[in-house]
């Protein structure tokens, strides 16, 4: 991506911004779903792409964002709620990052999955024992179109930030870490700071996505906000598209979001089975993602 491609990118955003003006409920909600997964998968790949640390904590941050809105959405102005959500997400990411990024490989994967479940259980425990109601209603005065525009803005931001990171020393440091962490340390990279910084940056976007999505549900409980399927879906979307490039995850988000929609509508009882088969097929057939496939084609 070069400076020049900012112009077509801005055009695409402008065109997408017109969707709520003509699309009805279903298509608008599908568009929102696409944008939501675009943000999540691109943010995921921002950290996991270069470092090859597979995180299953996506929904932990997403859920934190949603719950921040559920708790504070009626009390505080919207922009302040988003700011607090971002801060809480950052804080959790820093704590988790500092304590876990020493782990490598499968230990990191398992820990992040455990983390998401732990947060879900903690919230459940709190709601049952302290507030004495498992679910919460989210009353925020916002239209479907406004939610869509916010998510579109966030998607544009995640691409812009991702692009800037790629060109930065931080992005370069992460690529070196992904290739060989020992070399990274011996050329003077503080690998802990580099990893935690990008982990937190990626978490902020996930948290904000959760915050923006929350009003759409009107009712949330821990099982909805911290649904582990979201982490897996984001992972498989990013892998299908290709986590090595900024636009890669997008190439996975579009077909898979549509596939999920189709499966839920057409085969509600066999959803998980077909999804599992789709995951297997992706890992076997396009191990480097669609973006990798396109690069190889072009190289030929």
């Amino acid at each position, binding site marked *: 991506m070069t400076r020049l491609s900012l112009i077509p990118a801005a055009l695409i955003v402008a065109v997408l911004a017109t969707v709520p003006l003509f699309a009805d409920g279903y298509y608008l909600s599908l568009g929102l779903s696409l944008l939501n997964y675009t943000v999540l998968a691109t943010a995921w790949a921002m950290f996991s792409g270069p470092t090859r640390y597979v995180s299953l904590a996506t929904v932990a941050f997403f859920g934190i964002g949603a719950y921040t809105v559920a708790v504070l959405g009626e009390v505080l102005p919207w922009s302040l709620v988003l700011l607090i959500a971002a801060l809480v997400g950052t804080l959790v990411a820093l704590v988790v990052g500092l304590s876990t990024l020493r782990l490598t490989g499968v230990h990191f994967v398992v820990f992040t999955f455990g983390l998401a479940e732990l947060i879900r259980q903690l919230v459940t425990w709190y709601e049952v024992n302290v507030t004495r109601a498992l679910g919460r209603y989210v009353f925020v005065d916002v239209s479907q179109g406004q939610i869509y525009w916010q998510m579109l803005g966030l998607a544009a931001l995640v691409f812009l930030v991702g692009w800037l990171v790629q060109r930065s020393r931080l992005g*370069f440091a992460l*690529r*070196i870490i992904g*290739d060989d962490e020992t070399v990274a340390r*011996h050329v*003077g*990279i503080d690998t802990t700071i580099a990893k935690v910084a990008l982990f937190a940056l990626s978490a902020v976007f996930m948290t904000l996505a959760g915050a923006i999505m929350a009003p759409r549900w009107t009712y949330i409980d821990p099982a909805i906000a911290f649904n582990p399927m979201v982490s897996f879906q984001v992972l498989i979307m990013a892998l299908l598209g290709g986590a090595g490039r900024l636009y890669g995850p997008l190439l996975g988000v579009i077909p898979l979001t549509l596939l999920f929609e189709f499966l839920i509508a057409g085969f509600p009882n066999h959803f998980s089975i077909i999804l599992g088969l789709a995951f297997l097929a992706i890992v076997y057939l396009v191990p480097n993602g669609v973006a990798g496939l396109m690069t190889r084609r072009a190289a030929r």
Partner: protein
Amino acid sequence: MSRLLDVTGLTRRFGGLVAVDGLSFHVDQGEIVGLLGPNGSGKTTALNLISGAVKPDAGTITLGGRPIGGLKPDRIARLGLARTFQLVRVLGSMTCGENVMAGLAFRPPILWGRPAAQRAEALLDRVGLRGGAHAPADALTYIDQKRLELARGLALSPQILLLDEWLAGLNPSELQEGIALIRSLRAEGVTIVMVEHVMDAIRSLCDRCVVMNAGARIAEGPPAAVLAQPEVIAAYLGDDDA
């Protein structure tokens, strides 16, 4: 000559094994010091302790008078210590130019963008990888990967360079090129500690040698004198043959 690296009483245990046992030696500015010893004598562990990859249990290490023992490897690298690895480590997903830029972008003063790319090309030239900045690093031959690793080390503008069997596995003509390259670095004033088994290289390059056995220093001095000492011969060949 001023003292650049000073190692005193350096000790590291792995479980019951004392890999480095009270090792002391020093390196002066501009010297090439060979670290010798039979396999398993603790040479690589000594390099790992000095470069921060492994933390010492006891002893002190100073670089230019500044204690560096137990610091994290990235701190030590930024203080001016570069190293290569016994099993060559290049960044396989990147180009040669990017491999060298990795050494430029995180040390003081930071070099980034165009100046870094230019400096990287100059360093690739320096080690004999001319015009290969855009070549993928994993397509290089073994000796060229070693050259690339050396260029990355030099990119740190190190006060001292640690070479861990950098000449191992080269064929005779490559070996001559390698020796000439290291000699030319000395001419530029780079201080070098080299762990090496290739005796020709040690004899022609090293000002001094430190010989280790079972984690401890057993001899020190000019290569020819050291290699003739009975303790050294015994360590390499066993007592019966000495």
